[in-house]
Every structure is written in structure tokens, then in C-alpha cells.
């Protein structure tokens, strides 16, 4: 992430300058360092101050800033599903065992059910809904469809997000790398063989596409 941030610094700064309040881009909240303390406080809520009970926070999800009311104990998963109606991330176990709730937080695949919503303030969240560009599915999504890397589809959003993160870190994974990379995502229908094919196919098409 740090690499990405530093290379994007200038464009983000200039973007920030020209921006009115209201809609915030994905870029604005990725690093606290880019924002003045006051700006950060305005967007994130005061740092170091206690949050008790119901509080309105801002989360940056799929490139948009959302204001929503949560409690400190509200998980990121519940915030996404129950408040923002982003139901792509699924609740399979609610205990960090199944990976159905996997989302990207600052580019890393994490369990949304094990993350507090208040802890996700100031971070960039991408859910499975944010991977496609409009109607154009991402290479990973396309490959899952083409290779039939899904059956009932309930675990699929988690697997797609985990596979996306895996390929970002390792564009040319071996079969063992793929198995390890997806080890946190359970699929009861048993789609794994086709998922492995899909990830390999996506890797190939992403390498071709640069």
C-alpha cells in the first residue's frame, strides 16, 4: 500500500484541492497524512475522542464516502449490509471462520465480521460490488463466470475478493499459492477445482492486459 500511496500522492493532492465538500473520492481517505488535522477530524470524527452509543461516522466504500449511524460494537460487515445495503459481503459464520464477508481494506483482504465499523474510518473499503467497472466485470469476476467457479454463490463474493487480493500481490501464482491464498474462504458446494481454474485464467488475462 505504501508504494501505491506515494506514487499517487500528487494526483491525489491536486484532486483534493479542486474538490468541494460532499462527495469524497476513494483517494481522499486513504492516508491521514494527506489531510490537514482539521480536515481529518471533520471527515473521520475527532481522533482520540470516545465514541459511545449511536454515532454517525463516514466510511469510504467503493469510491464513495457514506455517512451512517453505527455503534462502536457494529461490525464493518453489519455496517455494509444493514446500513448501506451492500449485501455482496455475506454473513456465513459471524466469527471469522468462513471468509464469506471478505472485503478489501486499504487493498488487503480482511474479514468484515471481525472488523469494527469505527475502526474502518479513514480506510478505503472495497466490496465485491466495487470490483466491476459499471457493467464490465473484473477479470477475476469474468473468469469465475466462464469457468463456473460458483454454485449456490453464497461464498462467491468472498472468494472473488480474496482471489482479487491474491492476484494483486502475486500475479503469477502456482496452484499451491492459490490454495493458500483462498484458505480462509469456505465453500460448502465444493467449487474449489473450478475456482482454481478461474484464478489461473484471470491471472493469465490480467498479465496479458498488463
Amino acid at each position, binding site marked *: 500500500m505504501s508504494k501505491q500511496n506515494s506514487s499517487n500522492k500528487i494526483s491525489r493532492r491536486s484532486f483534493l484541492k479542486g474538490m468541494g465538500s460532499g462527495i469524497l473520492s476513494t483517494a481522499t481517505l486513504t492516508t491521514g497524512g494527506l489531510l490537514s488535522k482539521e480536515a481529518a477530524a471533520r471527515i473521520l470524527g475527532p481522533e482520540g475522542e470516545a465514541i459511545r452509543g449511536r454515532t454517525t461516522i463516514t466510511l469510504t466504500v467503493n469510491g464513495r464516502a457514506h455517512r451512517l449511524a453505527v*455503534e462502536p*460494537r*457494529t461490525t464493518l460487515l*453489519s455496517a455494509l*449490509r*444493514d446500513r448501506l*445495503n*451492500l*449485501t*455482496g*459481503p*455475506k*454473513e*456465513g*459464520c*459471524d*466469527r*471469522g*471462520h*468462513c471468509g*464469506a464477508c471478505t472485503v478489501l481494506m486499504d487493498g488487503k483482504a480482511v474479514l468484515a465480521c471481525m472488523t469494527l465499523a469505527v475502526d474502518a474510518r479513514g480506510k478505503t473499503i472495497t*466490496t*465485491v*460490488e466495487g*470490483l*466491476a467497472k459499471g457493467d464490465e*466485470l473484473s477479470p477475476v*469476476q469474468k473468469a*469465475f*463466470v*466462464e469457468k*463456473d467457479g*460458483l*454454485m*449456490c*454463490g*453464497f*461464498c*462467491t*463474493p468472498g472468494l*472473488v475478493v480474496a482471489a482479487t487480493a491474491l492476484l494483486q500481490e502475486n500475479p503469477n501464482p502456482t496452484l499451491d499459492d*492459490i*490454495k*493458500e491464498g*483462498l*484458505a480462509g*474462504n*469456505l*465453500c*460448502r*458446494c*465444493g*467449487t*474449489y*477445482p*473450478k*475456482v*482454481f481454474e478461474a484464478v489461473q485464467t484471470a491471472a493469465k488475462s490480467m498479465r496479458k492486459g498488463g
Partner: protein
Amino acid sequence: MAGWKSLKDMTVLSKPLPRLDGPDKVAGQAKYTHDMHPKGLLYAGLLVSPHPAARVVKIDASKVRRLPGVKAVLTDVHPTGTVRYAGEEIAAVAATSPEVLEDALELFEVEYETLPFVADIDSAMQENAPRVFANRPNIRDPRVRGEGDVDAGFARADAVVEGEYRTQVQTHSTLETHGSMVYWEGDELVIYDSTQAVHGVREGVAKFLDMPVNKVRVVCKHMGAGFGSKLQPGRYTAIAARLAKETGAPVKLMLTRKQDFLGGGNRPNSISHVKLAATKDGKLTAFYAKTYGTAGIGTNAGIRLPFIYTIPNWKHEHYDVFTNAGPARAFRAPGCPQASFVMEQLMDELAEKLNMDPLEFRLKNDSNATRQKEWRLGAKKFGWQRRHKKPGADTGRYKRGMGLAASIWWPGGRGTKATMTIYPDGTLDVKCGTQDIGTGTRTYMAMVAAEELDIPMKRIRPMLGDSNFPKSGASGGSTTTPSVGPAIKNTSERAKTKLMDLAAQFLGVPATDLAWDSGTVYMKTNPVKKLTWDELCQLLGTETLEVHGQWVEGLSSRGVAGCQFAEVTVDTWTGQIQVNKIVAVADCGLILNRLTTESQVNGAILQGISYALLEERHMDPETGTMVNANYGDYKILGAKETPAIEVIFYDEPERGVIGIGEPPTIPTNAAIANAVYNATGVRMYELPMTPDRVLTALEAHQFAGKED
């Protein structure tokens, strides 16, 4: 009615096509019951009994009712007030947020009078064990089946093997738990349910609530899998409906993961005392089995012995045993994986005694003509001849072995209705009150219509998962495809006939003079006179054409065979079994979609491996509750445990459509167990074959060896 086209003439059917709902599912846009979030939604939850056996003396919900955000409370949800397993519903709440719901559930004060219980089958079978049902013994009267003269059969045998085999309780563990989202529109109830049977749930809930069936609508567009656990209406649905009625708001009630483990269904265990005999030329003569199984507080814990083999004399006595545990439900090929574990290992033992190759021995005793071919085909592809002749032949820490086992399945197609609506612009809807439980039903509905009408798939909108659509059965028993496939074909044919009539009228010729090809109607004697699909549909003017069809005989078959081969490596230091490869031969009749069919076979095999090596419900004898009711303690197979799988389809298109979801999960565990024996010379009599069980068996074997 015509039969299916020949394979070579098909342009859509039997091809490997990606599923139509794939894009929605990979983009997170497919809405499951759990995702339903209408305005004003209330979150409902169940308070369940922590005790395996108790009388509910008093439920004090006054604190619950006082909690801000609580909108409705029910304390009369249990039908009798006597609970018989930990996890039974005691009370329910609807609240404005998940947080309030959770707090509310903590505020119930329930007084229980606890009762003695039996947590597992062994304690339930002891003399003077506490009874699960006061007026009935725990061990039910046996079901006895058989034929021939068993004593005579054993008397004329040259070799006999016998033993005790045990299999575990396995839970369905679907990723989406059971649950419903419901709301009322006046006196009509709308239910979104994670179900395998929209019509069945409609009828069941109507009965629960004493309502007319036509005032209940059940919808299930996408569901997070069932495997048999979601064939029946749930009490939670009726509870949600009552809460919705009381509050006038939509209510969602999903079981928690733990509640799903406790009460969402399971595959019964089995204890089998068995004996099998053959003559020295390898013909089976007799089989005897006395078996026990627990379906918790439910029944039907049977095991389908003597499995696939032809035995002239056999007898099987089965006893269901009640325990204070959640009731079993149908689970992918009920009674069959248990049977393959027992019978296929007995067959191997007997083959060894007769000094015969296990494959050769099976060929002598398997009367199924399809499977005779499949055994040979699979053996060749797998490389069966590479198998160690002597078990445990590898030296060193890691030992490799090979095994095989058979599968079987019975049901075929049955009554299903469908409707097709054709629009003047050439598009059409195909509606059927079936459901797509992840098997690709929606996709092949469109494929069948596209094939029959010779029109592009994208013109067709397949619609299912709604009890307002024509009736179809539950998605269970591998009956869906052989039921729905023919029904859609029949409906398409009728649509074709109606369109031909329209064309005949328009062209002023008898319909018998017309033919249909590539979506075009033309005159046989003068093919230049024709109407394309679009022109045909335009004849409808401003009307739509509504056509009804149904399942008919002759397009599907009953009966499935199949076999599997497994190669494993056993780590003799730790007892860990690694499955290296599974080769599966699956007979599929006419395959409608090769891609999704292959996925189903893969999935069945992986569930079979999971059953063989990993899964087991553990009941705590002290508390009578399940101790591993979460995915962190109850392991279901993951990416790392997935071996190489080769699926070989044995096409028999002349048989029409047959089901495939269940049979391939049957043989996997037994093929692995036989491979473990071949690797180590040690037989595993109990599932799952966990590392410590394997190691214990290896050590016992080694010790026995030293004494020799």
C-alpha cells in the same frame, strides 16, 4: 411427443455453458433471503434452549419488552413446552436493529426444570437410559428387510468376513443458514425463504398458520445451498410471520450459525454389525446386518444395505435410536455414504480373503450393466494396475495406496408444470415453480427452450423460485433436472405447435404442410414460403401467447450407477491422510449442461472427502449440547484439502435426463478407506478417519505384528 434430439444435432443443450446468474453472483448483486432489506425491516431472532431436555416452567420477558427498539415478543413458540434437544425454539423477538435484537435476547429470564437426557447413541442404548420420549423406548422396533435363506447362504460359503463399522453425525453446514424474510400485504403473506421447495413451504406454512394456501406466496430466487436440509417448512418462518403480523412490518429471521448447527439438520450416524460371505469362485452368497442409527429426536436413520451388490440371501435389521439431539434431515443421498463405507470395505476384505483383485471381485457381483462398463473405464483411466498388490508395500514414512467404490441412485423425474409466455417482440418467459439451489436449473431451463425453439438464449428469460409459478416438486432426491428438463421441453413443443397453427392460419395452409427449422416455419413443398421467429411472434399482434406444459414420460430415466477411484498418501508419523486424486465415472444419461454438471460432481466428491476425513458432530456428554457448533471447530473441507479430481462422464443420451447431484458423494469415503488399507495394511472401521484414529490403528497393527 418427440424425444430429445441426438447429441450431434444439439447446438445448445449438452454444451458447457456458463450459468446465467453467474454475473449477478460474482458481482454481489444476487439477492439471497439473508440479503433482503425492505424499508422498515425488523430483525428477529430466536431464544433457544441451552438444555437438551427440560420443561419450560416460566418465561419472563418483561425486561425484553421494556428495551427500547423491541417491537414484538413471542413466548409461546414451542408447541409443548418440553424441549428435547439443546437448540429448540423457546421465544422470539423482533427489534429495530441487530444490536437491539442481541441485547433483547440476553434479557429473557427463563426458568427450566431440567430433565435427564441422552447425548449420544451409545448412552441412549444402555439399559435404564433416560428416555427421550417418556412413553417410548429409545430403541425403536426394527425394520427388517431381506430375501432368500441367510443361514443356508452362509453355510455354503467358502469365506466369511464380519465386523463393526461406525459412521458419524454430519451436519449440512450450508453457508447461508436457514431463515426467512416475511411481510404481509393485507391478509396475504409473502415469504422470502432460503428453501429447496417453494411450493412445499407454501403449503406447510399455510397449515402452520391455518391460512388458505392461495394467500401465501413463497419466493426464493437465490439460496445459499441446502443439500437436503431445506426441503421442509421451518417453524422459524411461521414465527417470523406472526412477528410481522403483530408489528405490521417486514421481519427477517435467520438462524445463527450455532442454531443452524444444532437444529438445521444432519446426516444420522450408523453402527453396523455386518457379515458377508462368498464362494471361492467369488460369488456372494449371504449378507447379514444389524444396524443402529440416531436421527436425534427424529426418525429415518436408516442405512441402505446391502448397497449395490446382488446377493441371493440377505437380511438387514435396522433400529432407529432416539437421542436428545437435533433431528436429522435428508442429506445428499440419505443412508448411502454410510452404506458404501460398510459394504465396500467388506467387499475388499472378502476379496483379499479370496485372493482376488477387488475390481475383479466386484465385476463378479455387480449386476448393473452400466456400472460393469464404468468399472472398466474408470480402472483404465485411473491406472488401477499400478496399485500395490500387497497392502502397505511402500517403505518409509509416507505410504501410498489405491481404492475404489461404487455409487447408485434411484429416483427420476416426476410431475412438474411449466408455463411459457411469448411476446410479440420475440422474447419469451419460461416459468416453473422449481428452485435453483446452485445446480444451474435456471440456466438449463433457458437452454432447453433455446434448443427446442432454435432461438438465441438471450431472448429467453427463465423464471423460477416463486410459488406463484406452476407447481414443481422440491429440489431434492436428484429429481429436479429429470423433472424440470422434460417439462420445459414439453412446454416448448406445445408452444411450437401453437405457433405453427398461427402460421398455418396466416399462410392459409394446413399446419401439416409446415415444418420448423432453425426458428423458422416454412412450407415443406415450397420452402421459400416461410416465417422467421420474429415474424411469427409479430403475428401475435398485441397479444401474448401463453402455453402450459408438463413433465411427460419418455424424456428422463430412473436409476444411476457410477464408481470412483481414490489414491491417497498416509503419513505414518502423524496419521494424516492426504487424498492425491479422485477419478469419478458418472453416468449422466443426457447431460443438459456439461459445465454445471461437472461442478456438481466435483462438489459431491469434495463433500465425500470432507465426510471421510474431517467432519463430525461432537456432543458433550456432560451438557448434552454440541461442542463444535461453529466452523472453527467443525471442519468442512477447504481449498487446501482439495485434491485433483478427474470426472469422466459416461454418456447415455438415449436414457434421457437423469439426476446427478447425489450419487457421486456416495462412494468417495469408501474409496478413500480402501486406499488407506491398500497403503498401510490397516483398515479403518470408523469415520471420520482423523489423524489420531489412523495413528492409533497403525500402532495397534504394529503392536499386533510384533506379537506374531
